[in-house]
């Protein structure tokens, strides 16, 4: 810096405003006697002066702590007079609050080309605390970065713009089996990645660093990585680009996903196995029912023919035997038909459509009209909503529940069945419960004979019956079918009852089905 500043050209007010206003340092021009006549906005902030506050009554003395002022007066100004400038440290005093601010000080003697003050003092102060705060913050940030790096469970590797490893955290040492010293300065593709992908990987990293972008930027990719002992493991790789010391660096986050991979593979295998076993079971039930029906039908037909053609030749005992055989065969057929129906309901027949439950229920009640009239009963249908479902299965469900409610009536009481439904919000509860989301609750309530609490699960089992056949007919398949239908829709069915008073069957079904072919929404 020259001995003294000499301003030869004119300096306009506007230029001064721009220059002095945009600087964060304290800049002041003062007379040789210590009277300030110009102070920039940053300077005004440091000493607590308003933007337009006049400086007329103030002296430089007012801006400094006492010791600082004395040093400026006794050491600084004489030095400026002698050699043209002085550098030191000072403490600025805020005029409003009295708080002190440590600053670095630079003082110059300035010769103005004209005017009544040919020689003035130019004083510049720089906020020292801010610089030290920044330095401290930087140190803290670096320490934080270091501790994050070192405590990370996942390996973190930083590569500089030359593609060379400059950071290799502890997790990386553990995962890859290399010490930091051995890896720093090498290329990731040389040590960490199998030779098969090295070339491509290297190209990608280089392209990435050069262009500042790449196909992998901001995405997670699955890669295979090498351990020092030659093992390989699957990993998820994320990359992020940043600047360090003015050069781009790339940080690689590596996550060992071998456990997750293994879990996923196992899960997929279980799912496939379950699917296959279910399919086999359904196929078995279907084929068995079909093939069992053939000989059975013949037993019944020829038995019938025996009765029709030879009935007159048989005595009463023989006719009774034939009749019993025929009844047993009829029942067997009923069971087989039930099994067949049961096996036909599969969750794979995902032919979902929007089903208006009100319409279906009215149709079901229409179909049961004869039965309702015969027993003098009544079916009340509420405001049922629409849901996405397999139409035929839903019809069967409502048909079975309604028919059941009519069937298990009390002998002394005409049956009254109430069918209702509405949307409900349901939170996910215990495992096995339907997932959270909008559900439709359908209830079928009757005033029939009901059942004991202990049977509330058993009634949904296949071929389960609570009553002798001569009291209530049936193969014990209706509610089992209901449960299968409901489960194929991802729902639940349950029942509660007061014996002798009536039962309520409650069905919860998702309003929408995932992965539908027709894709319509109710």
């Amino acid at each position: 810096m020259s001995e003294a500043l000499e301003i030869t050209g004119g300096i306009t007010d506007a230029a001064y405003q721009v220059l002095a206003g945009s600087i964060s340092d304290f800049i002041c021009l003062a007379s040789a006697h210590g009277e300030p006549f110009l102070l920039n906005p940053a300077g005004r902030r440091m000493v607590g002066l308003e933007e337009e506050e006049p400086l007329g009554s103030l002296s430089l003395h007012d801006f400094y702590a006492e010791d600082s002022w004395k040093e400026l007066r006794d050491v600084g100004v004489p030095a400026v007079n002698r050699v043209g400038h002085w550098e030191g440290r000072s403490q600025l005093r805020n005029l409003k609050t009295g708080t002190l601010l440590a600053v670095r000080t630079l003082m110059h003697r300035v010769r103005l080309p004209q005017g009544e003050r040919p020689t003035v003092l130019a004083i510049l102060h720089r906020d020292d605390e801010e610089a030290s705060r920044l330095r401290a913050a930087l140190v803290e940030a670096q320490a934080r970065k270091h501790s994050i790096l070192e405590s990370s469970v996942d390996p973190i590797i930083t590569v500089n713009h030359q593609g060379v490893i400059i950071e290799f955290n502890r997790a990386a040492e553990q995962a890859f089996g290399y010490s930091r010293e051995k890896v720093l300065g090498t290329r990731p593709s040389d040590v960490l990645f199998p030779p098969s992908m090295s070339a491509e990987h290297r190209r990608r990293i280089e392209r990435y660093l050069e262009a500042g972008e790449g196909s992998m930027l901001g995405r997670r990719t699955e890669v295979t990585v090498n351990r020092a002992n030659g093992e390989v493991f699957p990993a998820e790789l994320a990359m992020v680009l940043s600047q360090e010391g003015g050069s781009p660096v790339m940080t690689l986050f590596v996550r060992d996903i071998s456990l997750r991979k293994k879990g996923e593979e196992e899960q997929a295998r279980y799912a496939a196995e379950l699917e296959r076993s279910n399919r086999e079971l359904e196929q078995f039930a279907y084929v068995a029912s079909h093939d069992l029906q053939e000989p059975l039908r013949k037993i019944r037909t020829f038995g019938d023919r025996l009765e029709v053609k030879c009935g007159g030749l048989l005595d009463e005992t023989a006719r009774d035997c034939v009749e019993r055989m025929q009844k047993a065969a009829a029942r067997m057929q009923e069971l087989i038909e039930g099994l067949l129906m049961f096996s036909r309901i599969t969750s794979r027949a995902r032919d979902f459509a929007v089903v208006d439950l009100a319409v279906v229920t009215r149709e079901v009640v229409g179909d049961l009209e004869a039965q309702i009239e015969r027993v003098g009963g009544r079916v009340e249908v509420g405001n049922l909503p629409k849901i996405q479902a397999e139409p035929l299965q839903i019809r069967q469900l409502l048909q079975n529940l309604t028919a059941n409610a009519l069937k298990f009536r009390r002998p002394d009481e005409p049956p009254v069945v109430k069918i209702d439904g509405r949307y409900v919000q349901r939170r996910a509860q215990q495992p096995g419960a339907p997932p959270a989301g909008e559900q439709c609750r359908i209830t079928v309530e009757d005033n029939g004979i009901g059942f004991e609490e202990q049977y509330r699960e058993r009634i949904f089992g296949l071929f389960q019956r609570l009553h002798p056949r001569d009291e209530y007919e049936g193969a014990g398949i209706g509610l089992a079918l209901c449960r299968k239908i409901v489960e194929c829709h991802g729902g639940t069915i349950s029942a509660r009852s007061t014996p002798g008073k009536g039962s309520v069957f409650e069905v919860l079904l998702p309003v929408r089905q995932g992965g539908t072919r027709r894709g319509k929404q109710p």
Partner: protein
Amino acid sequence: MKKPSHTILIADDDEDDCLLVQEALREAGQEQELRVVRDGDELLGYLRRAQDGGQDPPRPDLVLLDLKMPGKDGRQALRELKADPRLRDIPIVVLTTSSARDDVSYCYAMGVNSYVTKPASFRGMVEVMRTLGRYWFEIVELPRRE
């Protein structure tokens, strides 16, 4: 007993069922000429021979077709003969144990004339034969032989 006026061709590999159909027809008073084939290939062979001329074998007035047969089954045979312009005017009634939705819709789509599920009782079978006989041989105009 009047002389048989019509020919019924039964396509069914099951001897019991053939016997039952025959007995049921007799019980129903349908004394028609009966011919039996055991699978789809035999059925098509029979119909083509009958079509090509001569009195033997006679062209059937009605075919009772079982779906489940060994080799070429009823579904395949039905598709082929309904696709054959010379044979597709022969009335075909499917008489089978299957009441599966798929089978029913497939057969009608192929152009079958009726679809009947085999009744589980002899009385039921007699009733079916009586009705079929009355419908096809008394009510309906059948295609004329040339």
